[in-house]
């Protein structure tokens, strides 16, 4: 691994704080821009490898990323500082919005605006899912599992943990047989 710059706790905090406040609806592209292009914390290859790790493990990717980057430069305390830097401001903002919603949420004008925003939010999530699904077109057999979990969760209301443990082994088996041939 190439030589590493010293990144202090306060730099980590400010970096992740900035990443959090820059991005609406997904902050990973900002994370790359901030850490690789602007601040030179990571090389492009290091970022890609860490991103692979964060996708591999459970938990929101960007939160995983903050833990890994913080730990890499400053150990456990760096991980905590980065995570707090990432989550602190958004948590305060959303609690303020939640308080306003509790107080004024029933007003007709606020309800009208929120109905519009909710319809857009639904579209944003659907679009994210569709974009992810296009990556899967190379492995069409696996789309069966996407469809199964979609129907199971939306219409049959299966609990997530049961679905994951039920379908993941089958899906991995298909992946192993069809798409990940032994070398």
């Amino acid at each position, binding site marked *: 691994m190439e030589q590493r710059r010293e990144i202090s706790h306060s730099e980590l905090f400010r970096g992740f704080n900035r990443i959090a406040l820059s*991005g*609406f609806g997904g*902050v990973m592209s900002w994370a790359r821009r901030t850490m690789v292009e602007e601040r030179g914390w990571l090389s492009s290859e290091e970022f890609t*490898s860490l991103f692979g*790790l964060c996708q*591999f493990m*459970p*938990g*929101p990717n960007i*939160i*995983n990323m903050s833990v*890994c980057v913080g*730990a890499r430069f400053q150990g*456990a305390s760096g991980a905590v500082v980065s*995570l707090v830097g990432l*989550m602190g*401001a*958004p*948590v305060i*903002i*959303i*609690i303020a*919005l*939640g*308080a306003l*919603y509790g107080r004024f949420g029933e007003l007709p*004008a606020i309800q*009208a605006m*929120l109905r*519009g*925003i*909710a*319809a*857009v*939010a*639904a*579209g*944003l*999530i*659907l*679009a*994210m*899912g569709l974009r*992810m*699904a296009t990556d*899967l077109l190379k*492995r069409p057999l696996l789309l069966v*599992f*996407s469809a199964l979990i979609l129907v199971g*969760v*939306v219409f049959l209301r299966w*609990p*997530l943990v049961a679905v*994951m443990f039920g*379908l*993941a082994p089958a899906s*991995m088996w298909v*992946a*192993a047989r069809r798409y*990940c041939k032994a070398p």
Partner: protein
Amino acid sequence: MNVVTEIILQFGMLSLVAFGGAGAVLPELHRLAVETHHWMNDATFAQLVAISQATPGPNAIIVTLIGWHVAGLTGALAATTAMCGPSSLLIFFFMRFWEKIRATRWRLIIQTGISPLAIGLVLASGCIVTRGADDGWGAYCLTAATVLIVLKSRLNPLWLIGSGALLGLAGVI
């Protein structure tokens, strides 16, 4: 059981199966909050998701808002900690092994096998929020238009959120 304890246990468990991020656990959050515990109705859930999408930062922030709605400040902090804590601890201890397993076949198999499930879950989230949010043709059209615009352009989502608010105010939705 105390509602905060309930939040910590349930969200903490979710943290460890959140493959694909917050989008993938929305259906389960909905099942817990609306169907199992009746903390809120479908429309309120969709509105909380809407508020979280209009907030800068990770999408996982939705759990903070659910916690706040259910149990105030304690609930908000408990929900956030429960959602971030277990997965963060796990990756903290696991990251040192990553370079060793990165190129292995079983790593590829696990990841290839889990990705269609994550995709199905994100699409399910979209359907559940649509069901809660949209109650007329105007709303369905706005959702559909959002999908098309996001897929066809690189417009900042903030513009879409702002337009949604204006269209709502104008009484179109």
